[in-house]
């Protein structure tokens, strides 16, 4: 028997697709992937969506999700071939030798059962330990994972703890039955940036202390670089590159890996301050039926043709600020001036030019486009609505816009469902551009996209700004994006602007505590970054 805990060789996973109106066809999700994992080591699986990383992760417990079939190759765990094992053998193996940590802990916990009972459930059902032993181990793990009051933490229900804590509780659940291998499926992706590194550090410590082996699945190379010993880069279900973390980060061999490593390296020179196209003065706003202000006396200026990045974690009021500017949430105090005229607080009080010159791009391009309209209708409607373009003139302009977003005119009659994530976001950009706006509000436009695709969108936005001289109010929680695109930055925290100014000033020390926390939370593509950051932090993140 070899020393390796998990050995997957030449794995092939198929699924059957049922395209409407066509006979079912077999699609290959994973093809010819091999990997080895030794006891106590961490292997990072990385790739964009659809790369097959989660599918491989689940295959390590011989499980195929949603009709995926493990059709070829071998999966050897602890010296036993498990790909063709029967249900009985698998049942005794899952939860005992391999456990799983899902991306969304909030969706994975049963809201009606106390945390402790869920955490120790597998240990009891496999008869690994008795109740008292399991509870003691759970409390020990809670402590190790840095959860507050480990003795009583388990008596709470899932909704009574924060998202970051829940993710750690799930890690405790996975570690409780003393497994040999834990599969982490994007455990920090759904968390806020400032919470992410705490959870990451907790997971890393727990892995080291318990000596368990782990498969760590993520799309963020900088994150996986902090925890993994080896990295396997995947694309379209095939291996791109497989090697030690240090080699992948510092000397990537394949072009695709190089692109992943050098992502977020857009160079954007800050423009000099100029006359403001949008100024928000002392705007305070609250939602109907609540008794606290979501925005507290916000004052910011955005010069024409430049980019103001609004940064902050969830709940800081970034998106509410956008709603106040667009008129969806009329502010209770303060005023908004746009292109020299005072904007009516209500949407209904604004002129058609006011509406036309402020456009919006959303985070989820899927829900931002009517699934029953073609690309031509989606982009064409603002042309028709604002400029009265019809027929041939409209079609010509749509084609120009499609060219501008680097998509051919062949897309004009397609439906949104027939586009990729990046293309959808491009169509949304074209729809905004069609109105010839002076300001585009970009609400987390790259957050839902894969890193390389997001890079493409950012580059496109910068090019368009140079040509069309449009200003962006860029809402994001990702500081790497901010560095790449902004001229000015406003850092928001709990409804207030805590730091505001030109990019070079905001990103230069001395920092206030919150900005420091935010800046230090962005994973960097270097080894040992996590340890360094944790050493010099001044402030605990809100998610704790």
């Amino acid at each position, binding site marked *: 028997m070899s020393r390796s805990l998990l050995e997957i060789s030449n794995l092939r996973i198929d699924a059957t697709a049922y395209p409407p109106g066509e006979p079912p066809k077999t699609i290959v999700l994973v093809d010819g992937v091999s990997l080895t994992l030794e006891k106590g080591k961490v292997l990072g699986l990385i790739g964009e969506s659809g790369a097959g990383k989660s599918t491989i992760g689940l295959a390590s417990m011989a499980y195929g999700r949603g009709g995926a079939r493990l059709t070829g190759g071998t999966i050897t765990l602890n010296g036993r071939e498990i790909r063709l094992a029967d249900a009985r053998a698998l049942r005794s193996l899952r939860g005992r030798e391999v456990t799983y940590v899902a991306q969304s802990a909030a969706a994975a916990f049963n809201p009606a059962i106390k945390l402790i009972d869920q955490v120790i459930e597998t240990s009891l059902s496999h008869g690994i330990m008795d109740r008292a032993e399991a509870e003691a181990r759970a409390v020990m793990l809670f402590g190790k994972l840095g959860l507050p009051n480990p003795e009583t933490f388990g008596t709470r229900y899932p909704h009574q703890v924060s998202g970051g804590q829940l993710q750690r509780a799930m890690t405790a659940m996975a570690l409780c039955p003393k497994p040999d291998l834990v599969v982490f499926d994007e455990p920090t992706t759904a968390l806020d940036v400032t919470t992410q590194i705490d959870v990451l550090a907790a997971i890393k410590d727990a892995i080291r202390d318990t000596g368990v082996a782990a498969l760590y699945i993520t799309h963020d190379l900088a994150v996986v670089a902090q925890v993994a010993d080896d990295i396997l880069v995947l694309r379209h279900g095939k291996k791109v590159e497989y090697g030690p973390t240090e080699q992948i980060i510092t000397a990537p061999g394949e072009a695709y890996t190089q692109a992943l490593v050098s992502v977020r390296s857009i160079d954007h020179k800050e423009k000099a301050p100029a006359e403001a196209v949008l100024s928000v003065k002392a705007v305070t706003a609250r939602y109907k039926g609540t008794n606290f202000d979501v925005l507290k006396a916000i004052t910011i200026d955005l010069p024409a043709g430049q980019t103001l990045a609004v940064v902050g974690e969830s709940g800081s009021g970034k998106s509410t600020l956008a709603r106040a500017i667009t008129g969806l949430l009329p502010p209770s105090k303060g005023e908004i001036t746009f292109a020299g005229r005072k904007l009516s607080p209500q949407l209904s009080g604004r002129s058609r030019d006011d*509406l036309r010159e402020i*456009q919006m791009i959303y985070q989820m391009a899927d829900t931002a486009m009517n699934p029953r*309209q073609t690309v031509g209708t989606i982009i064409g409607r603002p042309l028709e609505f604002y400029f009265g373009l019809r027929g041939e003139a409209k079609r010509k302009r749509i084609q120009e816009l499609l060219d501008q977003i680097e998509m051919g005119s062949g897309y004009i009659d397609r439906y949104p469902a027939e586009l990729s994530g990046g293309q959808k976001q491009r169509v949304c950009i074209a729809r905004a551009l069609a109105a010839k706006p002076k300001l585009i509000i970009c609400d987390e436009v790259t957050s839902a996209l894969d890193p390389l695709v997001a890079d493409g969108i950012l580059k496109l936005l910068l090019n368009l700004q140079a040509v069309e001289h449009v200003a962006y109010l860029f809402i994001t929680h990702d500081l790497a994006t901010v560095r790449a695109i902004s001229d000015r930055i406003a850092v928001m925290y709990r409804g207030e602007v805590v730091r505001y100014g030109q990019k070079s000033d905001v990103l230069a020390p001395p920092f206030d505590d919150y900005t420091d926390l935010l800046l230090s939370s962005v994973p960097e593509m270097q080894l040992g970054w996590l340890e360094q950051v944790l050493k010099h932090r001044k402030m605990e993140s809100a998610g704790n």
Partner: protein
Amino acid sequence: MRMPISAAIGLIMTGAFFLAAIFAGVIAPYGMGEIVGGVWDPVSDKHWFGTDAIGRDMLTRMIYGGQTTIFVATAATALSFITGSILGFTAAVTGGWADQVLSRLVDLVMAIPSLILALVILSVTPVTLPVLILVIGLLDATRVFRLSRAVAVDITVMDYVEAARLRGEGWAWIIFREILPNALSPLVAELGLRFIFAVLFISTLSFLGLGVQPPLADWGGIVKENSAGLVYGIPAALIPAFAIAALAISVNLVADWVLGRTTSLKGGRG
């Protein structure tokens, strides 16, 4: 795409019912009120379904009865869908007071059993076809209102509706171009069901004597006229009952198929 066999059967049967209704005057072997035989004559080659309580040809009565029943049900369903869905969408889009008033009003109407409400209304108004259609249509519209409002509330929070509002679009565009195409699947499913309920409703009213009035024939009325015969083992009253069941099944086979098609449309709601 090939049509499944069930949908084909449903389509042929529904088509036959509607064609028979439209061309009743051409295909019916005898006149509607013509007495052509004895009381409850058995099935023969002259009278395929026998004759009724006063010696009229049952097949002829069924064809003319189907014409009235299907016409009233179709008109009532159309009325209920037009008023119900437009009001439902408006309530969802405008929200606030308009929504509260409309929704509570609908709750009020739904709180009273619709058959009793219909009987009360019809006992004080002249029972003519337009009145029947209006009463059935408006009572059914409450159900359609509930469904379309519920569906539209889900859709109005979508970013594309917000984008349309920010563009400055009027309510007509938002309702007919943004919401309606995305709400179509559940509404089509409901359409088949509502149509059958309308058929049952008009038949029930006629059976109770407050629906279609003689000399016009309709399926509920035919059951009523011949129900006495059941005691003597004469099946004439069962024929319209079978017709109602056959129509119900065939319409829903078609509705199922249409629903399947619209949901698999590009980007359709599942």
